[in-house]
């Protein structure tokens, strides 16, 4: 029972961390290898703001999200969108390069020691019917679920969402009816970066982040997206909960030192068996 709750809460945290990747994947059809660094940079931005202003980290993650979004916009507009038209491999290399740049910048500015974001509720836990619940993970879960609903509403119920979906399904036709696809794609990457900044803050509330931890989070987010189905926003929630459960139960059975083997091995298995997600239709990946 403890494990079940722990797993679900961990999954709740994974939801926010994977949403950005899923959004970019679904709309721009691009795998953002810098996604892990978006999360980590977001966490660092928030921790700087907390050190400066001493306000609540969740509140300060909003300006951090805006800052990261402001960096992401020109990246998509002036670097990624132009190379995407040329070949499928180019955006992989560019986002890979961006990931290294972000990592080294963090290393140069803050050193390699892990960092956490401090808040009064970061280490607190309480008991519900005798089951311990970590407050920070509960907050992460609530925010994750909220973000899933907001994002889903935004994509399917607003004019902006219609433009995004049009630009995603058929960029050329969308261009004919007056949608600026490059602007739209850039906005989508900005939104993804903003969500990732919040996700990174949530990570830093519960665990420590270091400049190198981005790769691990990228793979976790990717696993979530694969389990939940490519580009599906609601799928990300399901995928995150499943991964959280698998990781928690797996490391309880095999020992916590095999956590990475379980998660990354699970990712590879999932890619091979059902690359279109547990609930997805059979699509060639």
């Amino acid at each position: 029972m403890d494990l079940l709750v722990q797993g679900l809460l961990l999954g709740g945290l994974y939801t926010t961390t994977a949403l950005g990747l899923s959004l970019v994947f679904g709309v721009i059809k691009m795998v953002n290898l810098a996604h892990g660094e978006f999360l980590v940079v977001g966490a660092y931005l928030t921790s700087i703001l907390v050190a400066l202003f001493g306000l609540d980290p969740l509140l300060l993650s909003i300006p951090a999200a805006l800052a990261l979004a402001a960096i992401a916009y020109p990246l998509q507009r002036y670097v990624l969108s132009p190379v995407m038209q040329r070949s499928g491999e180019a955006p992989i290399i560019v986002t890979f390069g961006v990931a290294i740049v972000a990592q080294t910048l963090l290393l140069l500015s803050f050193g390699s020691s892990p960092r956490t974001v401090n808040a009064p509720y970061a280490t607190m836990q309480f008991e519900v019917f005798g089951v311990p619940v970590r407050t920070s993970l509960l907050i992460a879960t609530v925010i994750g679920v909220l973000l899933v609903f907001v994002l889903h509403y935004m994509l399917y119920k607003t004019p902006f969402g219609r433009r995004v979906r049009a630009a995603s399904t058929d960029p050329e036709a969308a261009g004919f009816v007056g949608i600026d696809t490059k602007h739209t794609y850039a906005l989508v990457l900005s939104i993804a970066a903003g969500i990732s900044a919040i996700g990174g803050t949530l990570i830093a509330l519960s665990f420590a982040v270091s400049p190198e931890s981005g790769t691990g989070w990228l793979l976790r987010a990717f696993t979530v997206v694969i389990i939940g189905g490519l580009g599906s926003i609601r799928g990300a929630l399901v995928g995150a909960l499943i991964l959280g459960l698998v990781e928690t139960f797996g490391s309880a059975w095999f020992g916590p030192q095999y956590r990475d083997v379980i998660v990354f091995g699970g990712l590879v298995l999932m890619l091979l068996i059902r690359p279109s997600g547990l609930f997805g239709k059979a699509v060639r990946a």
Partner: protein
Amino acid sequence: MNGITGRALRYGVPTVVAVVLYFVASEVRLSLVTQFTSLALLAVLAMAWNLVGGFGAQFSLGHALFVGAGGYTTVVLLDRASLPLFLCIPLAGLVAAILGVVLAYPMLRLRGPYFAIGTLGISLAVLGWMLNWDFTYASRSYALAPSAIPSFLDLGRVSLVVALLTLLVVLLIMDLPLGLRLLALRDDEQGAIMLGARRVRTIVPVWAISAFLTGTMGALVAVQAGSVTPTQAFSLQFTLDAVIICVIGGLGTVYGPLLGAVVVFVLRQYTADFSEWSLLIEALIVILIVRFAPLGLLGLFQRLFKQIWRSIGFRGPAVNRDAKTPVGAAQ
């Protein structure tokens, strides 16, 4: 450069250079030999990755796995079986190649970014496993006996030979029908398949050769360091190096990885105390190259030379003038 003379030049010149270097090595300072060893190893890694990542367009992020497998194989063989070093190195390559073939069949079902993430996942999963495997002392350092470590000079010479062989193998593959099929599959997969090229059958042997070469490189790295730990031997840094060097030099060209290795190596020498700065500059160059000069430095130089030739009235070989895409084989 085609025909018999071209071919003789392409294979002959590197061989002669290597032979000269081999005999010069004993006459120069030892620090220079050590530096050259590192450069040669970087070049081997990049050329091996380029076979799959450049010519094959399979963006592998898992080559650190082969480096680590080669390194650990060598150390285990030297330590537990006390085989001579010159046997251990090809055996390390063989183990990496077998591992590569075993992984290739499931991995090649994935494409593009999926392949990249899948290979990255495998590489990290194996690292996670090695950190816990008692047979290789888990996360602790597995050191070689001092007697098993060759002298710097010998190591430099072996690295030189491995680098030469790697270049010759790359040249040979690209001269064989196998290389043509590989390029055809990269440039137009549907068309190539329709003409009878089989995707998996073409890529698997190339992938195995790439893994073999990377494994030998890992063996030399391990011997050079004198010990292995999982985090060092399976370090993602190797994968980063390979990708960065190939993109900077020229992805999917024969000499691009060589050029890239020299550029990156020199850059690292100048920023030796600030390795993060060097990596930062390299990554920025990578982004700029992909954005503005997708053929890498080699492509830039070729364009520059062509313009210089033209401006002094030489029109250049007629066959190549209209070529828009680089043909990796004939350069």
